[in-house]
């Protein structure tokens, strides 16, 4: 599936919920199914700056595709990074670089998009894209 298709699937899933509580509960569930980062990659280098909770992200190439694994010590943050990993992992670096992130707004997480917000959703997206840029250069 393309990034766009996955994002639409996520929007569909979230549209089933009537209120924020159900959305958050689902996000927490998604967090629990996150492909976990290996312990050896939970280093300060892999920490995303600008988050009140700790978020580690690791990226590696599988052929021409970039695979993300991640973890967080806060469960809601883990849910957010899980959604991002689902949308962007196993994709070509160039597609990750070009991807739109408007779906975050559509699934009712707009409040997390403020650049000053302590959970750093913006920092997370930026970090995933930075990885993509780095590996795109490597692929060339």
């Amino acid at each position, binding site marked *: 599936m393309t990034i766009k298709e996955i994002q639409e699937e996520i929007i569909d899933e979230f549209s089933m919920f009537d209120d*924020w*509580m159900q959305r*958050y*509960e689902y996000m*927490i569930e998604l967090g629990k199914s996150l492909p976990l980062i290996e312990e050896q990659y939970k280093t300060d280098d892999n920490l995303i700056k600008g988050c*009140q*909770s*700790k978020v580690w992200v690791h990226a590696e190439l599988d052929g021409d595709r970039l695979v993300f694994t991640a973890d967080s*010590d*806060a*469960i*809601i*943050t883990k849910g957010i990074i899980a959604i991002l990993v689902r949308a962007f992992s196993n994709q070509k670096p160039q597609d990750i670089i070009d991807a739109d992130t408007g779906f975050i707004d559509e699934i009712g997480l707009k409040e997390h998009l403020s650049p000053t917000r*302590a*959970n750093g959703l913006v920092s997370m997206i930026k970090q995933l894209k930075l990885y993509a840029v780095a590996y795109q250069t490597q692929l060339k």
Partner: protein
Amino acid sequence: MTEKNILIEKLDVNTIRKDFPILQREVNGQPLVYLDNAATSQTPQQVIDAIVDYYQNYNANIHRGVHTLSQEATDAYEAARQKIQKHFNIAYPYEVIFTSGTTDSINLVANGFTSFLKEGDEVLVSAMEHHSNIVPWQMLCERTGATLKVIPMNLEGELVMEGYYNLLSDKTKLVFCNHVSNALGTINPIKEIIDAAHKVGAAVLVDGAQAAAHIKADLQALDVDFYTVSAHKMCGPTGVGMLYGKEEWLKKLPPYQGGGEMIAEVTFEKTTYADLPHKFEAGTPNICGGIAFGAALDYMNSIGFDAIAQYEDELVEYATEQLLTIDGLKIYGTAAHKTSVISFNIEGIHPYDIGTIVDKLGIAVRTGHHCAQPIMDFYKIPGTVRASFSFYNNKEEVDKLVEAVKRARNMLQ
């Protein structure tokens, strides 16, 4: 009940709440429950009116103008200085320096002490300081070669006074301590700290930012050398605060910033500085902010600090009892003398998660390290959830907080 308590007029919270327009609003479809008062307090209509009145009727630059508006603005600004002087029982109005807030006040003193310290001197700072009362002193020590030493604390969140006495010596030149800890709510024994420091000839700066909304400090009785306050923590606006300094210290300290207002005479060869307090008030100050600071003190004094303290103590006691009914909840900061702050975690749950869920329920609390990372390191936790109370909060709001934390726990476990 002591005799004193009987004499205090009971605070009428329902009437008081009507003074704060912001308490009428909703957040995420729920009535706002504002429990982040330790970060900043809300502003009563009386203070908002003072701000509007200034800009509508007598906005002008002060001290220099001969025209009527300038004189009215100068009078109001200087009247605010006198209100602050009276409130904190300060000997002279010129010992009150207007600053942009506590951080600015501390930096002013830290910069001024650069020429007074040398290698081998020691500076003591308490283990429960806000970053703003750590970093400027670290920078001072880097500039001068003095050594920073830490007054230890115990698990209850109280300073270990024996440890303090052991650190004091004739090398000690300065001691810094907050009056009330912003992260734990502990009321520190500052009179004891000040007296002991003076015995070895050290000066003491007390950061009163967190205390000022709850305790009316008598600065002459405390005999403190410096005391700092931010107006926005006591119903005033942001961007204004005060530095109290004893006259002898303020005369010794060099000016902090150069500019207009702070000079007596300027030639290209030499400038002579203005007298106190203007020596430390370079440039056009936050005139409206200063006046509104005075209005905030008037407002709080009209309610009365004894009534405020009694009411808040009851409220915090009730909140503590209710929160402790939640399984796995642990309170950090259980000092015998504490005020207005409850810092807590629930076992196995990140404070950030709790903060996010309770915000969705309309409740404003703070999560994180509260600009006091050394305290979090001490307890080996990433942070806490902090509910901080003011005299305009009520028991219904405490109940909503407890209910929200219970819901968060159920969702997150």
